[in-house]
């Protein structure tokens, strides 16, 4: 699969009567990491939500394997993993229950695999503690455990390094690189100075214009 998974043509997005970006075109190829850069308010999160299919207030074309995405929404959703700023972790549930709930509609996995994934993000021993008793970084790691078991070819990760300690950050960097080597595509927005070999960059303007 060397054709682009996702192709954006002349994207334009307006928010609160302000143009965030216009004439934005790029391709997401298999086996690449793409970093969306720009100052606060330049539309990084908005762009990622557009790519994920959450935000519909934009114009332009988005192609999924060369076909209009809107016509292949179900296939697109099945093959895309989106981790938002709000990661979908329920404070009242335990990490294990959260992970069960988040994977149930996509690819249900047996509990030992989920526990192993939680252990892989440094949450061993916390699997059955309600998430509200965990720190912000630990809650974030519950969401990141999904990356260890996700098989979607396209990952859209918003502010994935937030609240993660230095060891975790380099672990995620390795994970992204490994994912790209496997042939998966990753799009990240981050203020963290992420530098990976062969990384594509999308630079958004200053929010004015």
């Amino acid at each position, binding site marked *: 699969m060397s054709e682009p998974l996702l192709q954006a043509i002349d994207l334009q997005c307006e928010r609160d009567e302000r143009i965030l970006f216009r004439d934005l075109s790029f391709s997401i190829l298999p086996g690449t990491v793409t970093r969306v850069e720009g100052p606060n308010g330049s539309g990084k999160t908005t762009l990622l939500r557009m790519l994920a299919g959450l935000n519909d207030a934009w114009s332009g074309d988005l192609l999924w394997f060369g076909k209009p995405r809107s016509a292949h929404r179900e296939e697109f959703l099945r093959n895309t993993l989106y981790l938002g700023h709000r990661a979908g972790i329920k404070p009242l549930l335990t990490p294990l*229950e959260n992970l069960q709930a988040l994977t149930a*509609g996509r690819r249900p996995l047996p509990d030992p695999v989920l526990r192993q994934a939680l252990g892989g993000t440094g949450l061993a021993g916390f699997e059955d503690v309600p998430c509200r008793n965990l720190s912000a970084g630990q809650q974030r790691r519950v969401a990141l455990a999904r990356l260890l078991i996700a098989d979607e070819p396209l990952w859209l990760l918003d502010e994935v390094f937030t609240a993660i300690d230095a060891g975790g950050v380099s672990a995620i960097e*390795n*994970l992204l690189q490994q994912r790209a080597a496997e042939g998966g595509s990753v799009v990240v927005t981050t203020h963290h100075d992420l530098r990976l070999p062969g990384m594509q960059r999308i630079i958004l303007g200053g929010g004015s214009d």
Partner: protein
Amino acid sequence: MNADFRPALVLRHDAVGVLSAMRGVFARDLRVAFRQRQDLLNPLLFFVMVVTLFPLGVSPEVSFLREAGAGILWVAALLSVLLSLDHLFRHDFDDGTLEQLVLQPQPLFLLVLAKTMAHWVLTGLPLVILTPVLGVMVHLDGNSIGVLCLTLLIGTPVLSLIGSIGAALTLGLRSAGVLLSLLIIPLYIPVLIFGTGTVASAAEGAPVGAYLALMGAFLVLALTLAPFASAAALRISLSNG
């Protein structure tokens, strides 16, 4: 972090079945609710309080209560469902669960239906179960209580389903309470009229089959249309979020 247990990279064409995805949504909502029992008790407590305050505030006369009882119970049930509606999507919206729900490959309206069913099991169904006790308290006779329970059993899911549209539409607003009530109350009125009408007709000894059939029609209509409207409203609310 290592990922030795991840399968090779392939494009997936099969999805988890709709039913098991719905079951997952339903089970999670119940589980979260039972971790927070106070929230679960609120609508029930409200229901009981309103019904007990009426004899104290208006009149404890048996004749009055027998006449107004069904109406009081129906209005109290309606208001307590209305009170609980804001929670239907709000927490999920705040913690990002809703985004993940919208991005699941299954049709959104069915997942929303599962959520609404969980809402009914947690709010409407307990009201129905409590109704016989409160019915005795307001001196309704056995036949009327039976019919009242039946109308609430058919009517409260309609309240949850219609309410889910309003809850989804007002999700993006910070103080949605008043607007939600204004949007939803007019749609609740027919259900209320037919619900109390059925019981009044039963009290007079008239047949109630036609009334119940009409309420059943309301339920079928709400079941088939409301999830579509809620799903569309959720997409709009999230798109602005």
